[in-house]
C-alpha cells in the first residue's frame, strides 16, 4: 500500500496527458481489496451463469437424495424434496443478481436525476419533488409487494420484485444526490459555468452529476447490496420470488428453521448473499477512491 501513499507529486501534473477513464482504471487497480473483490465477483457470476451449463443437475431436478449433507455428488447437499442445493444456489444467485442490478439501475438513474434537478432548481420545485420523495419513503414495502402480488400480474416474478424495490429505493439515492448537489452548486466552478452561459441541463449533466459521481457510485454500490438484502427481506416476509423459481433470499428464508438441523441449506445461500454484497461494496469502495483524485493519504 505504500506506493499509494507515496504517490509522486509529478503524477498530479500528468493528468492532462491521460484520459479520465485511464486514470480511474489505474487508480482502481491499485485498490487491492477492490481488485480481489472484482475477481471473486466475476467467479460468482460465472458460477451462476456458466455453472448450470456444466453442472449435472438443474435447479428443477428432483433427485432421490433427500436432505443429504454436502458430499462429492452434492457439494452443497440436498433439500427436503431432493433438489441439489448447489444447482438451486446457482439459480438463486442468477435471480438475486438480476434483481439487485435492476434495483440499482432503476434506483440510481431515477434517484440521481431527481436529486440533481431538485437540488439545482431549489425553491418550489425542489419542495414539491422532495415531498414526493417523502411520500414514497413512507410506503411500507410489504404492503406494496402484497398488493402487486395479489394482482397476479407478474407477481413474484424476478422483475416485478425488482421494479417494486427499485421504485422504493430511488428516494434514498435522490436525497443523497440532492444533498451533494446543494453543496456543489454553491461552489465556484458552477458559478463559473453559469457565468459562461451554461444552461441548467448542461450544468446538471456536465458539472453537477460528474462531480457528484463519487457519491453516486458509493450510493449505487450500496444500493446493489441493499437490493440483494431487500430481496432477501421480502422473501423472509413471504412476498418475494416464489417456488418453483428461487432466489438466494428465498432459499435462506425457507430454511431458516434448518440452521441447526440441516445447516448447509441455511448457510450456503446465506454465504452467497454475503459474498455478493461484500464484493460489490468493496468494488464500490475502490471505484470511489479511483474517481476521487483528491483522496490521498493524510497524517500517519
Amino acid at each position, binding site marked *: *500500500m505504500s506506493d*499509494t*501513499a507515496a504517490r509522486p507529486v509529478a503524477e498530479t501534473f500528468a493528468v492532462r496527458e491521460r484520459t479520465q477513464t485511464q486514470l480511474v482504471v489505474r487508480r482502481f487497480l491499485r485498490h487491492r481489496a477492490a481488485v480481489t473483490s472484482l475477481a471473486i465477483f466475476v467467479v460468482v457470476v460465472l458460477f451462476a451463469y456458466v455453472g448450470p451449463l456444466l453442472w449435472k443437475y438443474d435447479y428443477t431436478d428432483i433427485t432421490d437424495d433427500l436432505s443429504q449433507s454436502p458430499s462429492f455428488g452434492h457439494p452443497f447437499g440436498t433439500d427436503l424434496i431432493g433438489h441439489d442445493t448447489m444447482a438451486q444456489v446457482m439459480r438463486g444467485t442468477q435471480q438475486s443478481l438480476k434483481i439487485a442490478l435492476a434495483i440499482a439501475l432503476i434506483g440510481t438513474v431515477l434517484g440521481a436525476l431527481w436529486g440533481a434537478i431538485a437540488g439545482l432548481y431549489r425553491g418550489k420545485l425542489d*419542495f414539491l419533488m422532495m*415531498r414526493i420523495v*417523502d*411520500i414514497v*419513503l*413512507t*410506503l*411500507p*414495502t*410489504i*404492503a*406494496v409487494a*402484497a*398488493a402487486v*402480488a*395479489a*394482482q397476479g400480474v407478474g407477481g413474484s416474478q424476478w422483475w416485478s420484485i425488482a421494479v417494486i424495490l427499485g421504485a422504493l429505493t430511488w428516494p*434514498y439515492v435522490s*436525497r*443523497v444526490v440532492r*444533498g451533494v448537489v*446543494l*453543496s456543489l452548486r*454553491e461552489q465556484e466552478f458552477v458559478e463559473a459555468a453559469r457565468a459562461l452561459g451554461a444552461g441548467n441541463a448542461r450544468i446538471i449533466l456536465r458539472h453537477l452529476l460528474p462531480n457528484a459521481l463519487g457519491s453516486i457510485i*458509493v450510493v449505487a454500490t*450500496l444500493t446493489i*447490496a441493499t437490493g440483494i*438484502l431487500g430481496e*432477501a*427481506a421480502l422473501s*423472509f*416476509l413471504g412476498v418475494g420470488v416464489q417456488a418453483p423459481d428461487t432466489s438466494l*433470499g428465498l432459499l*435462506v*428464508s425457507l430454511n*431458516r428453521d434448518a*440452521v*441447526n438441523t440441516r445447516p448447509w441449506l*441455511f448457510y450456503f445461500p*446465506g454465504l452467497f*448473499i*454475503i*459474498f*455478493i*454484497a*461484500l464484493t460489490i*461494496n*468493496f468494488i464500490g*469502495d475502490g471505484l*470511489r477512491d479511483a474517481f*476521487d483524485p*483528491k*483522496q*490521498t*493519504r*493524510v*497524517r500517519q
Partner: protein
Amino acid sequence: MFAYVVRRLAAAIPVLIVASFLAYALVALSGDPLEPLKLRNPPAPPRTIELETQRLGLDHNIFVRYWDWLWGVLHGDFGQSVQSNYDIGANLGRSATVTLRLVLVAMLLALVLAILTGVLSAVRQYSRFDYATTFAGFVFLAMPSFWIAIVLKDLAVRYNRASGTTVFYTIGETSQNYESMSAFGKFGDVVGHLVLPTIALALISYAAWSRYQRAAMLEVLNSDYVRLARAKGLTWRKVLVRHVLRTALIPLVTVTALDIAGILGGAVITETVFNWNGLGRMLLNGVARADTNAVAAWLLLAGLVVIAFNVIADSLYAVLDPRIRHE
C-alpha cells in the same frame, strides 16, 4: 429557521394524507379481509358476512372508505379493524413505545460506534484498525437482517444452554412474571430481552454509518482549508474536532435521519424474529389481514416519525453547515 420548520411540518400534512391514502388503497388491493370468514367450514351464515361487510364499510368504494376513515381519525377514532377487538388507536400508541424503545437504543448504539470507528479509521487510514473495522463493517453490511438475527439467536441459545443460565431472552419484550418483579429485576429483564434485537438491528446501521463517517472524514481531511488550518499552526486535535469532525458529521446526520425509514423497516424483521409486539407486527398483521384502517394508521405514525426525523436532519444540516440556507 423557525419558519422553515413550520413550513416543513405543514407540508407533512398533505404528504401523510397522500401516503396514507396510497397505503390504504394498496392494502385494499391486496386482498379480501373477509376471506377467512367466507372460507370457513362449516360456512358462516350469509348474514354474518353481510354484517362484517357493513362493519368494515366494504360495501363502499375506496374513496368513500378512506374519507370516512380520515374523518374518523380527525375525531380521534381510527376506525374498525378487521379483527373486531383490535383497538387501532390504543395499539398504535402501545406498539410505538415498544418499537421506538428498540429503534432508538439501536440507533444510539450504532451512531456512537459508527462515529468512533469512522473517525479513528479515517485518521488512521490504511492502518490495521482501519482494515479490520472496514472489513467488519463490510461484512455486517452484507448480511441480511433476518440472517443476523437468526444466527445471533442461535448463538445466544447455545450460550444459555452451555452456561446453564438464561442471560438472553428470545421472545417478547419482557418475561411473563414481569409485573411481579422488583425494580432492579424489571430493569434486568428488559435489558435481557433488549440485547439481542438491539444488536441485530444496530449492526447493519452501524456498518453503513461508519462507512459514511469515514468517507466524510477523509473528504474533509483532504480539503484545502484543513491543510490551511494545519499550515497556520493549529494543533491537530483542534483541527480535528473544530473543523474536521464538525464538517464530517453533516453527511452522517442526513444519512441517520434518512435511515429511520429503513431502520423501522429493519425493526419489522427484527421484531418478527424476536417476537416483539410492536409496530412491525402491527404492520405485518395489518397487511396479512388486509386491514386497511390499521395499515393506514400505522403509516400515519411511521410517516410522522420519518418526516420528523427528516426535518430535524435538514435543520441540523443548516446549523452545521452555514453554506446551506433555508430561505
